[in-house]
């Protein structure tokens, strides 16, 4: 396979998101401009100019019309995906870390980092995709989060719960209505870097600095599978069509300059989802992998690295011949 290299970002990548059909690819990086690419050709469509800090995460509505981004400049912004115009800004007092649109796009969860003595928080806001002029900054519910950052947030089945993972390595499921903690899972011993939901929403995969990725039931938070890697894991994703997972990571950015790229384990690893066995690896990055996303058609996936490159890996026959 010949990967497509996208060199649009000048700083490490933080997050990658495909739209529902997989023809658009949104990338976020520590430079301030989230970028839109065509998912098949890798052609750059545009950049969303307006943030004044690292952009940590983004989410796109099901109709691909609206993009929500969260940035360290303490704002979350709503963009018109097509024109790149920011039409609404949520301003908080702390840096924004994770954002997630609810199923159906009527609500969004936005998490803020602990800052100046204020603990982390999860904010549930209302989103009006139909009439953008009616969009307000009103926070329906503010849930005071746990100690440390909340790095990723997901909406649970039927939007009843919000699932978060954070610095303390604990995965929590919160009641989206009253903000109570419903379930707690202490399977990871170190910070959770990424959470990614399966196609049907029944389970999700977590990536942690404790060098493992785990699959959890999204209702009970029961840990069902564990994939052990030989590196801190920054991202893990589930294949939408096969019983495989892909995880990526590498030694932390601090020690990268002191080791060779071979020793850094900067390749994406494919594991069998059920048997938890490592199947193979795909090399390419010369920095740790920070973000991964599967194309919804399952025939390619994209990785973003600390090296500032985004690589679209088309999976060829040699992959599909694997049992």
């Amino acid at each position, binding site marked *: 396979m*010949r990967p497509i290299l996208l060199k649009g970002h000048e700083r490490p990548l933080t997050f990658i998101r495909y739209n529902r059909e997989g023809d658009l690819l949104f990338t976020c990086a520590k430079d301030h401009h989230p970028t839109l690419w065509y998912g098949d050709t890798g052609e750059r469509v545009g*950049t969303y100019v307006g943030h004044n800090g690292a952009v940590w995460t983004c989410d796109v509505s099901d109709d691909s019309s609206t993009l929500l981004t969260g940035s360290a400049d303490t704002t979350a912004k709503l963009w018109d995906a*097509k024109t*790149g115009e920011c039409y609404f800004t949520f301003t908080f007092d702390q840096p924004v870390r994770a954002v997630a649109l609810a199923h159906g796009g009527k609500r969004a969860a936005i998490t803020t980092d602990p800052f100046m003595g204020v603990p982390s928080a999860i904010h549930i806001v209302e989103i009006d995709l139909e009439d953008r002029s009616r969009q307000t900054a009103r926070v329906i519910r503010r849930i005071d989060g746990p100690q440390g950052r909340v790095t990723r947030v997901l909406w649970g089945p039927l939007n009843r719960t919000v699932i978060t993972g954070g610095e303390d390595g604990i995965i929590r499921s919160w009641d989206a209505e009253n903000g109570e903690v419903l379930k707690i899972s202490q399977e990871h011993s170190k910070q959770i870097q990424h959470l990614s939901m399966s196609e049907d929403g029944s389970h999700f995969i977590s990536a942690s600095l404790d060098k493992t990725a785990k699959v959890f039931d999204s209702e009970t938070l029961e840990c069902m599978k564990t994939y052990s890697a030989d590196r801190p894991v920054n991202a893990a994703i589930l294949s939408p069509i096969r019983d495989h997972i892909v995880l990526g990571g590498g030694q932390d950015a601090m020690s990268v300059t002191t080791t060779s790229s071979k020793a850094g384990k900067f390749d994406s690893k494919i594991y069998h989802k059920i048997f938890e066995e490592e199947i193979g690896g795909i090399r390419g990055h010369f920095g740790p992998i920070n973000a991964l996303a599967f194309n919804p058609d399952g025939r390619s996936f994209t990785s973003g690295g600390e090296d500032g490159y985004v690589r679209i890996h088309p999976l060829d026959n040699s992959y599909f011949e694997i049992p």
Partner: protein
Amino acid sequence: MAIKPRWDAIDADTERAVDARRDADDEALSKTTETLRSTKIAAANGGSSDASDLPANEKLGPDEEGVMTSITYQINDAGVRTKTVKRYKEHEVVKKVTPGMLERKTWEKFGDAKRYKPGDESMTAVSLEEIFLEKTRVQPKSELEKASDPLAAMASAQTSLLVCRTCGKKGDHWTSKCPYKDLANDGSKPPDEDGAFGARKPGGYVPPSMRAGATGTGASMDRRRDENSIRVSNLSEDTREQDLQELFRPFGPVTRIYVAINRDTGEARGFAFVNMVNREDGQRAIDKLDGYGYDNLILRVEWAAPREERR
């Protein structure tokens, strides 16, 4: 006559959505062309450079393997008549395209991308390097245990390994950490250089050319290709070197395996050569494998005819 073979495989992705605008969710059919071989033949200089008397272009095929051949005649920039023979395969690729996706393909550039015209940006590049999925070798459990055993033994018997070369103390410290380092005699010679320089120590390395019975020059490496060469025929099309390795390895060490591949289709042509280190092993392999059923085919295994005879 100048023949310039060229290998193109990248053209394969010239996908074109036919009938781009359809209202319903529809499948856009696109055709990809895989160029197998494109050969350009320049005519001798005597050929006239008049476009009118060029032979008509031809299109042949598809043949039984689905390979099409197109022959085009042209006059190139230098005024030389050229004949291009292109052998290719056509694949039909069906791609689901929704109206929404088609609409999004027409989005105008915005933000930083606005400054560039379409196709003008150098942001996107297809990797020049072919990246392979590197499969993880699964080590059998027993081997893993074996591998860890000596390490465990070492750990338990660590004291005997820890010998200081300066003071000779066992199990206390490493040579570099020796507390008596400064007291050691600096003038002593390194222990290895006590013999005369040129004299060969018994048991030392002797290059093959200087060993008893050597003819002086090394034997030709080429000879080995014909030595103990076994011809295996009636193989199935998807036989790979690895399969033959598995087949022949039990009889003895194998030096070379060559599977004949059809250049056009990439499939095996049904025969292969296997070279064994020892002739006896080869004979045993032939005795056992000739007539052996493999992949629903009955193998034919025999000593390969020497090169000269085959010609």
